[in-house]
């Protein structure tokens, strides 16, 4: 797409911004109330999921409509590891990372058999299968789901407010890690081959890039972190259930809209999209279907007129302003 704008810029600026936000966000729990922290935790989780979808679609050109499969699977894995295997809750949470990575390997192997355009619907079918199977697993409460045991929840903080703080830090740490990893990947040799692939897959193959290997790597990274985020989400919701843990609307539909509106193929895109989404949700959630229609229309408009999203629109507006200023000064 708009290759040069999307891929320009060094890694120094994003890293500096990342450092600054860490300095602001980490001590925040000492200044704000539980409600605000819960709100921000929600934002961090959504933003991380959006970053991971963008990593696949914006950077890798792989559109998945089945990201909720991994979020849900991570939640169920966390529940199974803690409740059925009796593992330490922290260890269980950490284990959802390799669990998600391992799960995404066969999933990718099956999906990559389909042509690019059909990958999307194929991923959706797989997510459906995951959700239906989750509802049939013995010991997970069937279709209505099951609550986490209190002592597992309490491992993350004995009192409610300490738990809210800890989950806040945890989800923020995951977000920082995800963004840091994406910056790293995009500036690695793999990242450059990815850009070559995104611009022209055939030409990239001629230069020795194996598109499928690169896409598989992205898919595994995103699967691993989505699964971890699913575990954190379970800790927030205190329960797993098929329709909630594997929510198509929450973990795929909203996420796609956020990234498309914010700006695909740039790290700032999902950040803008997620913030905008959370703010709009505050004011428009009472309108349910109308809110969805507005989001859908905005996403279509963005795809037709500026596939780079708000990120590129803002950049363009700044350039224009700088130019007029220059002209005025001269």
């Amino acid at each position, binding site marked *: *797409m708009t290759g040069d704008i999307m891929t320009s810029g060094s890694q120094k600026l994003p890293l500096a911004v990342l450092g600054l936000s860490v300095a602001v966000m980490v001590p925040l729990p000492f200044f704000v109330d539980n409600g605000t922290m819960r709100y921000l935790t929600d934002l961090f989780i959504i933003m991380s999921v959006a970053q991971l979808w963008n990593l696949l679609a914006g950077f890798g050109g792989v559109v998945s409509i089945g990201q909720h499969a991994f979020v849900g699977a991570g939640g169920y894995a966390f529940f199974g590891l803690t409740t059925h295997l009796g593992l330490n809750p922290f260890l269980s949470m950490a284990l959802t990372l390799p669990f998600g990575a391992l799960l995404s390997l066969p999933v990718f192997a099956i999906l990559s058999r389909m042509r690019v355009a*059909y990958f999307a619907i*194929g991923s959706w079918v797989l997510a459906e*299968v995951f959700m239906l199977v989750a509802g049939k697993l013995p010991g997970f409460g069937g279709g209505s789901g099951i609550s986490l045991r209190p002592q597992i929840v309490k491992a993350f903080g004995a009192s409610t407010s300490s738990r809210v703080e800890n989950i806040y830090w945890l989800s923020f740490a995951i977000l920082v890690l995800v963004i840091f990893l994406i910056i790293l990947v995009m500036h690695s040799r793999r990242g450059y081959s990815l850009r070559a692939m995104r611009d022209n897959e055939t030409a990239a193959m001629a230069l020795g890039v194996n598109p499928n290997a690169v896409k598989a790597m992205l898919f595994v990274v995103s699967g691993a972190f989505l699964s971890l985020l699913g575990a954190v989400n379970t800790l927030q919701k205190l329960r797993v259930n098929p329709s909630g843990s594997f929510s198509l609307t929450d973990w795929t539909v909203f996420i796609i809209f956020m990234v498309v509106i914010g700006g695909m193929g740039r790290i700032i895109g999902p950040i803008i999209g997620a913030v905008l989404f959370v703010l709009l949700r505050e004011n428009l959630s009472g309108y349910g279907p*109308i809110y*969805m229609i507005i989001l*859908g229309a905005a*996403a279509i408009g963005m795809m037709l007129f500026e*596939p780079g999203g708000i990120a590129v629109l803002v950049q363009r507006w700044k350039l224009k302003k700088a130019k007029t200023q220059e002209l005025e000064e001269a």
Partner: protein
Amino acid sequence: MELVNTLVQGTLLGGLFALYALGLSLVFGVMRIVNIAHGDLIVLLAYVGLTVTDFFGVSIVVAAPAVLLLAAGAGWFLQRGLFEFVPRHDPLIPLLVAFGLSIILQNLMLLGFGADPQKLSIGRLEQASVEILPDLHVGVFSLLIFGAAVALIGGLQLMIYRTSFGRALRAVSDNEANAAMLGLDTRAVFRKAFVIVMVTVAIAAMLMSVRGNFDPASGPTRLLTAFEAIVIGGLGSMWGTLVGGVIIGIAQMLGAQIDASWQVLSGHLVFLILLILRPRGLFPKNDG
């Protein structure tokens, strides 16, 4: 006998799935667009049928020509007003536009018709059955659906391989730039193609709305079964799509023997197994 009955029911159900799939397959074959909103368009036309029958107080059999006409108009409008403006050099963009359209349609239907499941009725024909073998009764309406699928596929095949418009379709599908260079009005071809797609969608929608319930959220299920039928059959092969639909139909009916929740799951599982065994489908086309 129980098994034979299940196989027959599944086969006939497969006809409906093939009907769902034809439009999706055409849009991809001609325009290279994966229309994620396809299932929602089917449901939308079912609601159009419901509205027309309610408004004039007639049966869907009488209202069918009006629904077909409305569908044809909607097809032209969709292509002229939306898809014509979608750049297709990057498959990502049409895919995401269709995704946005899907969510918009679902929520418009929710606003307009509410979440309650609806169904159309055509009276006695729905319950009528014939005994095709001793002790084996088959619904007349199910046979009708299967017959419609066979007739529609036959008709589309004739159109694609025997008419000048079909030649234009194939030319555009093979190579759009070359077709345009040879003096073909590719925009007109695309518009006509979308009109035909929506007519097939209307036929599927009307038969579906009589056969069972539908609601604003039931589009994605239709999309997924249609997609599975196409991939199992092999992209671009319409008779293959019918076979794919029949396989999914039989898998669902066998699953339903265990319990209702296995019905959908077993369809998906059979699809995944076949995808692993035959990634190019049962009847692959070399160009597809």
